[in-house]
């Protein structure tokens, strides 16, 4: 058993103030598991690797974080006539990103649920905005601010990815700016028949299966010298 003193040193080395004590293990995101296993296989095969480049994502970086969404649904009423299914406030706690380094990727993933459900479902439109207003800490509910992305999918086919590098860089520069995101999803059924069964069905499933996460990749210059030359 290491002494507390040694443990502290080792945790410092890992850039951790103290040993985390998570209440429950999050499921390991597929992308991280895939990268980890590829690295382990290459190391076992004695293949030399550049640990400062994440080839699965095509970016440089030596630290990948997958932050879970800590927001909440704003309303879950039955779809309105314009097919609006749900509005959700998304919030990612960036305060954990303490170490110095360059942010090389910030990718929002919206997992709209398993493919099989929606083969014949109505088209779905996803509108993503920066949230405005006092946000989750104030009394009034957040409202949609600047639009970041609007994407239609012919019935959600698995995860949707949105590049939020500029937004997250901005938030990283000034944590007070991080008021979260405003997500609205519409199911576009047949206009003439109003809100039909399929739209309600799609909305109901979206409410149950929607998962949002933010993948952040940072590059620490101390651990990853800019030139590819090995340190002497």
């Amino acid at each position, binding site marked *: 058993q290491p002494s507390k003193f040694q443990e502290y040193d080792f945790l410092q080395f890992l850039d951790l103030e103290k040993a985390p004590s998570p209440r429950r293990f*999050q499921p*390991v995101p597929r992308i991280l598991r895939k990268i980890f296993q590829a690295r382990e296989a290459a190391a076992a095969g004695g293949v030399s690797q550049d640990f400062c480049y994440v080839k699965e994502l095509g970016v440089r970086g030596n*630290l990948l974080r997958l932050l879970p969404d800590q927001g909440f649904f704003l309303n879950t009423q039955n779809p309105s006539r314009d097919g609006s299914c749900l509005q959700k406030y998304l919030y990612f706690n960036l305060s954990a990103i303490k170490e110095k380094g360059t942010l090389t990727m910030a990718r929002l993933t919206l997992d709209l649920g398993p493919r099989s459900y929606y083969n014949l479902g109505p088209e779905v439109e996803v509108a993503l905005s920066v949230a405005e207003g006092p946000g989750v800490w104030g009394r009034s509910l957040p409202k949609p601010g600047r639009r970041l992305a609007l994407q239609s999918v012919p019935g959600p086919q698995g995860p949707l990815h949105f590049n939020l590098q500029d937004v997250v860089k901005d938030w990283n520069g000034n944590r007070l700016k991080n008021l979260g995101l405003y997500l609205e999803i519409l199911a576009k059924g047949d206009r003439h028949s109003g809100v039909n069964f399929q739209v309600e069905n799609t909305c109901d499933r979206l409410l149950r299966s929607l998962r949002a996460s933010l993948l952040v990749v940072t590059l620490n210059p101390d651990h990853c010298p800019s030139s590819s030359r090995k340190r002497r």
Partner: protein
Amino acid sequence: AAIPVPKGSCRNPCHRHQLFINFRDLGWHKWIIAPKGFMANYCHGDCPFSMTTYLNSSNYAFMQALMHAVDPKVPKAVCIPTKLSPISMLYQDNDETVILRHYEDMVVDECGC
């Protein structure tokens, strides 16, 4: 005037000693998802003059061993890692964030003088 090679081979030549740290022994398996531990190998052993002429030793070690043989006040050549490899760690922090982090030069693969 070649230095006579000492009688008998070196008893404890410089080499890699394997040491596996199991995170469960440290109680860290509660937040480190993978790997289950890591190879904290280390280098230890003597670097007499006779050894510095082979075993992936540096020219510098050869010269230092030569100088030590002539003047024992000059310290012997030392046993150090000559090949290192990185590791990745998959762990979870207190914010339920899953983190994959790579650490360069963490595992000793080879040692030399």
